[in-house]
């Protein structure tokens, strides 16, 4: 194959570089691979699935490529192994963008069987690269059509979350300022110096918020809006943790009472409150919300297609969907799945969140980012 020829050529190039630098080293090319890794038992991986009555025991272990965020709740997948006897090995591939790009680079020799955890802003890139194979699960009928953006089911929508501006309730009360209700208000003098956002070039919620402004003000008006935010002293930081834990007045003790975060953040503030509390200290500016739908897909080249399909069926079932809010802080794709009380009491699911056509995002991402950088940072 041409590919392997190129590999050999590369190795040769490397070695000739070395040969020039180091005498007498031309015959120890291969004895240097370290010994096989010490076999360790990954806690997430299954050893012996508990046998239940119905599923046929299986020796198959599926490799799931996911983003780093999901890897912290990999234990949710134990139930799948218990139900089906199919093991899951999880590979963490960085943030959503890195993960998708890695999957594209390894097309033809995929990293795993299933990929999960990319949102609509990366959807087109996945579809254009044709790295997944179609599967329409019987359970897919529960997915609201406006979220299943790929009619051919090359990928399947499995959960969603909204990126919204969060506000610190006590700050607005203490300072006698009205909580803003629209994006347009944020460029008024009253809200000068109150907002912190993430850089869309390095942060997924940062990008989502930029897309919300594009959706709200149109491709002609969004940069003017950002100029207004700049004039109103918007703070830009590199990532969510910095925005939330240093600049935001509620969680970080910082000076800014408005932060780009998630619709699920207020319930999380109750669930992980210290000391426990009955109401959320923060709220959500509904008009700012941008919808991120997360997708799953079967990677082309898998040798376990049937098992991978089983995983997607299971992913859409309540066995996982009902667990998502309290563990992964996203909303179940199935509107009939019961939500935990905190998610009913302390946040909203906007009826009409901002969205931007994934194809448009794919086409303009780089140009939008460049324009944004020029307007906001230069």
């Amino acid at each position, binding site marked *: 194959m041409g590919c392997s020829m190129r590999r050999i050529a590369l190795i040769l190039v490397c070695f000739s570089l070395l040969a020039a630098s180091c*005498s007498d080293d031309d015959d120890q090319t291969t004895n240097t691979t370290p010994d096989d890794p010490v076999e360790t038992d990954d806690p997430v991986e299954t050893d012996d699935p508990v046998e239940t009555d119905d599923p046929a025991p299986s020796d198959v272990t599926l490799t799931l490529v996911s983003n780093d965020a999901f890897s912290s709740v990999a*234990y949710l997948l134990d139930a799948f192994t218990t139900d089906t006897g199919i093991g899951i090995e999880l590979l963490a591939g960085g943030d959503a963008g890195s993960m998708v790009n890695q999957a594209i680079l390894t097309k033809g020799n995929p990293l795993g069987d299933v990929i999960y955890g990319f949102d609509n802003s990366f959807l087109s*890139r996945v579809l254009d690269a044709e790295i997944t194979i179609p599967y329409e699960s019987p359970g897919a009928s529960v997915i609201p059509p406006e979220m299943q953006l790929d009619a051919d089911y090359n990928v399947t929508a499995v959960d969603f979350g909204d990126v919204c501006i969060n506000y610190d309730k006590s700050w607005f009360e203490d300072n006698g300022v009205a909580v803003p209700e629209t994006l347009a208000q944020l460029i008024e003098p009253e809200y000068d110096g109150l907002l912190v956002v993430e850089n869309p070039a390095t942060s997924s919620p940062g990008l989502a918020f930029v897309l919300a402004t594009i959706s709200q003000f149109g491709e002609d008006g969004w940069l003017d809006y950002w100029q207004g935010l700049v004039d109103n002293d918007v703070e830009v930081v590199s990532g969510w943790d910095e925005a939330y834990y*240093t600049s935001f007045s509620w969680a970080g003790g910082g000076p800014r009472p408005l932060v780009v975060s998630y619709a699920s953040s207020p319930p999380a503030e109750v669930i992980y409150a210290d000391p426990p509390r009955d109401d959320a200290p923060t709220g959500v500016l509904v008009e700012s919300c941008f919808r991120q739908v997360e997708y799953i897909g079967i990677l082309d080249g898998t040798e376990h297609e049937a098992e991978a399909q089983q995983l997607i069926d299971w992913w859409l079932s309540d066995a996982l969907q009902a667990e998502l809010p309290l563990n992964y*802080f996203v909303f179940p794709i199935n509107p009939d799945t019961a939500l935990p009380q905190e998610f009913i009491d302390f946040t909203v699911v906007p009826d009409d969140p901002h969205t931007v056509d994934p194809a448009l995002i794919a086409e303009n991402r780089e140009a939008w980012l460049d324009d944004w950088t020029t307007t906001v*940072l230069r």
Partner: protein
Amino acid sequence: MANRTQLRSNRWRKRVGVAAIAALPVGFITIFFLYPVASILWRGMVPDGSFDPAPLKRVLTQPELRRIAWFTLWQAAASTLATLVVAMPGAYVLSHYKFRGRSLLRAAVTIPLILPTVVVGIAFLALAGPGGSLGVDLKGSIWLILLAHVFYNYAVVIRTVGGLWGHLDPRIEQAARVLGAGRIQAFRQVTLPLLRPAIGAAASIVFLFSFTSFGVVLLLGGAGRETLEVEIFRQTAQLLNLPVAASLAIVQLAGVFVVLTIYSRYQERRTVELNLRPSSEVERKPSTPGEKRLVLANVVFMAALLFVPLGVLVKRSLTTSDGIGLAHYRALNNPGSNSILAVSPTEALTNSLKFALIAALLALLIGGLAASLVGYGRSRATQWFDSLLMLPLGTSAVTVGFGFLISLDRGILDLRSKEIIIPLAHTLVALPFVIRVMVPIIRSIDPRLREAAATLGAGPVRVWREIDLPIVAKAGLVGAGFAAAVSLGEFGATTFIVRPNVATLPVTIFRLLSRPGAANFGMAMAMSVVLMAVTGLIMLFVEHFRAGDVGSF
């Protein structure tokens, strides 16, 4: 005739020996660095089977990218200079004066090296960010970046330079003083030239670290400040623009290579053999008021530089809803109460220690062999080899990570889903430390010692064992300690490598910090303090080992 045959056979044996020593380091660096990096650059530069120079031209001519390259270069140079200026007196004090708490201090200065940038970022912003407790907002200014780079790299200078300084024969400088040189003149004309190899070694590591700085610049530099590393990450991981990313990576590599070549030439010219003394002959208690003041001033400075930011973390880890308490630490121990962790801290600690051990052993083995080659060899070839071994420090982590992905993907080399890939990546980062710590020491072993031993009838192996090994072993121990520390805190490079889902301490801290909720933040801080404590203990252990060994040369 017989003589000539023997000579030839000796030369042949020497070559075989060199080849045997070179095999492991050369193989390692080829498989885990050159080949992956070459693969990803090839993919970028030769997209459809033919070389496309357009992106490289664009990168070289675009003013925006030139601005980024220039900023990368000068902030790295400034960081290196600042670190050297600040840390040299510290290296002197820690290597020359005995005082209570010295080994503790020497162990503690290494702690910053292992702290994840997110955690350091939070500490620095709490001090000197918007609304920070120092009352100045330095965020977005170059000063906060420089301060953080000094904070991170202080230990590199202390260890590398102090390691040699503490063994310089004090009589050389004393002789200069007796001959009428002033204190400053004696330092400039006698001590400084002798220290140059170590200073060069430290400077090159600090430079490379700052040159490829990612998290510090992102977090503290404020929006709009970018290094080449940040831009390569953006082009690769976000935009999948491999041609531009490859072009940038080539520019970065070229810059690093130029710096390394200059350094290695310079180093070669300056290295002299020294009569190294046991540190017990060098160290003494500060006696005059001037010496006491010097020690005190440096201790206070170190305390301020290191313990103020670390103190912020400790304080935050202890701050709970009802005042100061250990609630967050108790929560760590009871993961059942909080599903986010999903892994007990003991498990994360075990994973971290396991990887640190593997990485330290690998780095010591490979680095030790490489350092011998570079340290004993004097040819142009070894200079090149030396620079080559430093390259991983100066290469963007995302380039290496994506290179791993597309090159180490078949047969026995398909390590993408193997845990070993994590300590292997750590080894790559730690190798330059081990080598840079060991080479100056090896080079300064006085050959007359060896000659004397040989004259007295010792064979080459025995000479090496009796003369070199005791000295080299200690340098190796320091290097291995460094490698373990690097591995414990490594998070940056490994995030760009597809890897099995194994929770280590930094990974767990990162997970906690990516969730809202006061409890999660508190636990992240508590976990950071645990990481600090573990590293401090390891370094203390290394210190102890070293101290117990003093006097063997």
